[in-house]
Every structure is written in C-alpha cells, then in structure tokens.
C-alpha cells in the first residue's frame, strides 16, 4: 500500500488534518489521561489534585480498606459467574437456535432485546421483581410455599447473585448472538463428515465444534470481561451498593471517592488497579490475536 503511493509530508495533508480529532483523542485523552491518573495515584491528593508524592501510600491504604476488599471480592464472584454462565447459556441457546428451527428470528429477537435496555432500566426492573414484599418471593408465598426464601437484595451474603441474575438477563443475548455467528461460520461439511462417521451430535459439539470456535470464544470472553470491569450502573440502580457496602464494586468505589468522598488520591489508586486488571486480560489476548502476524 505504502509502496505504491510514495508518502510525502504534504501529500496527505488533508487526511492528516481530518485525522486530528482521532490523534488528539488517542494522545491527549487515552494516553495522556491514563498517564495523568497513574501519576497522581502516587500523590496525596484530597479535594484537589496535588503534586505531593507519597509513593505507594495510597495503594497501601487502598488494600487495607475493607470496602475495597469487598468490592474486589464482589467483582471476582460476579466476574467468574458471569463469564462461565453467560458463555454456557449463550452457547447452549445458540446451539438450539442453530438446529434449523422455525421462528429463529422471533426467538433471537426475544433473547436479545434486554441488551438494548440500559443497565439502569435492567437494575430497576429486577429490583422490583426481587422486591421481598411484592416480587417473586411474595408470589411464591401466596402460592402456598411459605418457607420459600429468596431475598437477595436485602441479604448481604447473596446480594451479588441478585445482581448476577439481572446481569445475565441483560447480557446473555449478546453472547448468544456472537456464538450463533461463530456456529454459522463452521463449514457444513464438518457436520456431514461427523454424521457419516456416526458421531453423536453432542460429541461433535464438544470435541470438534467448540475447539474450532476457539477464536470466537476468546473474543467473546474479552468482551464480557471488559464489560464486567465496568460494572457500575447496574449496581447503582439495583442495590445502590447495599445493603451497607455488601454489593460494592471497584467502579463504584472509584466514583464515590473521586466525586463524593473528596479523596482523589484513593480514587486514582483504585482506578489504576482497575486498569491493571484490564491490562492483565487484554495484553495476552492482543498478543495472541495480533502478535506474530502483521495486522490484517
């Protein structure tokens, strides 16, 4: 490409000018903003950012704060459950939809519509459904099963699973769609071959199709994971972090310290930890995806 069109400085000048917003965003906001936050996470900023460096003090305090530990634990539980369940659920639903069924579009539309809704709407609906006095629990009580106890939103031990139900409802349709696209990408000859060899369908899925879909699985996992780290709106709407701090997550911790607790240093340190967590996921993936070969 570059070889056929010799590059001179002004030749592409208009293109360069047109790309200024992109260049500014990349350099100023993404690189500059990140560097700024990381740098200031080593300062003792309180109400306003200050350049008094205190080394790793903020991080030591962060990891000594129970609220942060709770939010990390919640994120881990939610994250692992969300990844496993939404992958399993998404794949099973996609496999069902891939059986050349009728009304496939109708089913797909129904399974995907929650994804169009915001986390705020999702959280509020499930808050209502899980309401102990009027929601699912009370309906089951009225049906006669008096001892039925499912009240996640007011029970600190299981509140994160109440959020998980809502998260799965909202997000599993997307996974199903991605998986369905992956299944459609599989050569039909493979199915024919496995049928000729008399291999049962479930074995074909587990030993042939799923290994073939590895790139789809990895991409989907990265998408789910980057969504999980951002988990914020859903918590705010559904539980407000409560009861107490039982359903806190890192993103909420950051927001509260930065914009309400007037403790910027803590907010910066916590957000840097979030960045670190994302890098641990994204860098190996980017290495696998783009490393070695030239970009496509």
């Amino acid at each position, binding site marked *: 490409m570059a070889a056929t069109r010799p590059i001179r400085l002004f030749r592409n000048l208009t293109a360069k000018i047109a790309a200024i917003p992109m260049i500014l965003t990349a350099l100023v906001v993404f690189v500059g903003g990140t560097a700024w936050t990381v740098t200031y996470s080593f300062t003792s900023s309180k109400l306003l950012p200050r350049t008094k460096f205190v080394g790793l003090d903020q991080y030591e305090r962060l990891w000594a704060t129970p609220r942060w530990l709770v939010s990390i634990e919640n994120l881990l539980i939610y994250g692992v459950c969300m990844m496993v369940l939404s992958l399993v659920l998404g794949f099973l639903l996609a496999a069902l*939809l891939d059986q050349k069924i009728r009304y496939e579009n109708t089913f797909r539309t129904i399974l995907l519509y929650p994804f169009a809704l915001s986390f705020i709407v999702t959280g509020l609906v499930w808050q209502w459904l899980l309401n102990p006095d009027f929601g699912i629990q009370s309906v089951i009580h009225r049906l006669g099963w008096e001892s039925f106890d499912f009240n996640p939103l007011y029970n600190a031990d299981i509140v994160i699973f109440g959020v998980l139900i809502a998260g799965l409802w909202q997000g599993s349709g997307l996974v199903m769609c991605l998986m369905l696209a992956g299944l459609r990408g599989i050569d039909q000859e493979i199915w024919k071959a496995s049928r000729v060899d008399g291999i049962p369908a479930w074995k074909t899925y587990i030993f042939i199709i799923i290994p073939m879909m590895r790139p789809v699985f990895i991409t989907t996992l990265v998408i789910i994971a980057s969504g999980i780290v951002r988990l914020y709106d859903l918590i705010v709407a559904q539980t407000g972090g409560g009861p107490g701090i039982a359903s806190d997550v890192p993103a909420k911790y950051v927001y509260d310290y930065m914009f309400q607790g007037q403790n910027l240093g803590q907010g910066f340190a916590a957000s840097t930890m979030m960045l670190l967590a994302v890098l641990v996921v994204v860098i190996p993936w980017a290495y696998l995806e783009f490393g070695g070969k030239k970009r496509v």
Partner: protein
Amino acid sequence: MSDPASLSATVAGADAMAPALSGPRGPKPRRRFSRRNVFIYGTLIVVALYYLLPLYVMIVTSLKGMPEIRLGNIFAPPVEITFQPWVKAWAEACTGLNCDGLSRGFWNSVRITVPSVILSIAIASVNGYALANWRFKGADMFFTILIFGAFIPYQVMLYPLVILLREMGIYGTLTGLVLVHSIFGMPILTLLFRNYFTSLPEELFKAARVDGAGFWQIYLQIMLPMSLPIFVVAMILQVTGIWNDFLFGVVYTKPDLYPMTVQLNNIVNSVQGVKEYNVNMAATLLTGLVPLVIYFVSGKLFVRGIAAGAVKG
C-alpha cells in the same frame, strides 16, 4: 384473599401472550413430531418466556393503581387499567426540588443524543475513511492506541477529562457531555467505518483520484452515498449507547441537565416519600422505550451493529 381469581387471571394473561410469543408451534411440515423437536421448542419457549417476563411485569405494574399492587400479585394483569402512573411519571414525578417529571430528562437526553450521534459519526467516518484510503505515516499507531483505549476503564479517564473540560469552560454543560460521548464513541465507530471502507473496491477510489478528486470530494461524492447502510448501523449503535449512558451523564452534567437515565434512577431510588411502584415502572418503561423501539424496528441492523462493534471484522 382473591387468590384463585388472580391465579386464573395470571393463566389467562399467559395464554393471551403465548401466540404472540411463539407463533404456531410444532414440527416442520415435512418432519415428524419428534422428541427432539419437542425438546428444542419447549426449551426455547420456556427461555423466551423467562426473558419476556420482566418486560411483561413492567407493563402490567405500570398500568395498575397502588392499592391493587399492594394486594395483588405482580404477575397478574391489571384489573382496572389506569394511565395515571404514566402521566405522573412523565409530568409530575419529583427529583429533589423539581417536580416536572421525566419529561425534563427526556428532552435533556434528546438534546444530548442528537448532537452526540451526529458529531461522533461525522468524526469517526472521516477517521475511518482516512485510515482506509489515505494511510499516512503513524496512522496505524494512532489507530492501535485508539482501539486499546476502548478497553481502558472509563474511571481512569474520568478525572483528567473533568480538568480538560473545566479548562475549556464547558464542564457541566451539554456541550461538554456531547464532546465526551464523541470521544468515547470514537474507537468502536472508527473501527466500524475503517473496516467498511476497506471492504469497498479500491479501484473506485483510484479512479476518482485519477480524475483529480481530492480528499473531501471523494468522501462526500463517492464514499458517503455508497455507505448509507453502515451509517445506519453506526446510528443505531450510538443512539442506544448514548441514550443508555449513565456514568458520563452523572459526572459531566449538572442536576437540571441530567439525562433521562440519571433522572430515572434519582426518581426511583430516592429515599424520601412513599414508594409508588407503578409510577416507578412507568418511568422505567418510558426510559427504556426509545432503545426498545429502535431495537424492534431495526431488527437485523441492530444485530449487525453489535456484531460489527464486538467482533473485529
């Protein structure tokens, strides 16, 4: 109390819903009514009902009066349909001192979404076009940074942007929020447009260049008319994304400029006053209505948008 009555009402409601959800059931004409088909359709119908349940509950709750909610079952259809909750949610519900309902948030959201969508798509389509057809030195590097930027948690960049906007004098204004949406929409949209423009035949571009067309001329007269579908996809992606945003709205605007999602959350989760669940659900539905309508109208294009945005083409 009225258990049997409400129960049979539930069943009637479910029956009324069934045809709309599943359509004619059963096997394809040429296939026998096999156990396999029963299993597949059975599972799918159960799952579909589960996914539809929250929407159904939202609708019926928003049409009931409070006494009926206190006594009845959330799954029961309303005995006496009332639109009062909708009116109240739209025009009277209170957040803090304002009692003009969600309508304020709705119009704020419109005033945020429309310019954000136009600006972000305009910028990203030009970016994508420059990246696909006018590769200049360093373009790939900026693009890589941009894509990596899509994975950086927003929390990392929240505060630097606050400072930046404050320096520019637009912190707390709609202009500032529009700018923020354009910035954070850029990675995914640029990717979308770059991939699309790369897939167009390069001969078109070369022929136009031979004929002496410049950067903007080729963009406006050749690329734009050819890429209407991708613009629609980008619009769907952005309208739903920006409408559903909560974090940026709450960080970068002031209370009387809060978008609908923020105002909705403030109305429903406010601590003072008696909880009016029917008004809450009507407000929730109102907020979800815009993306839902877009979703149901656009159908395949929506799927294409998220697939294009999610899986790199």
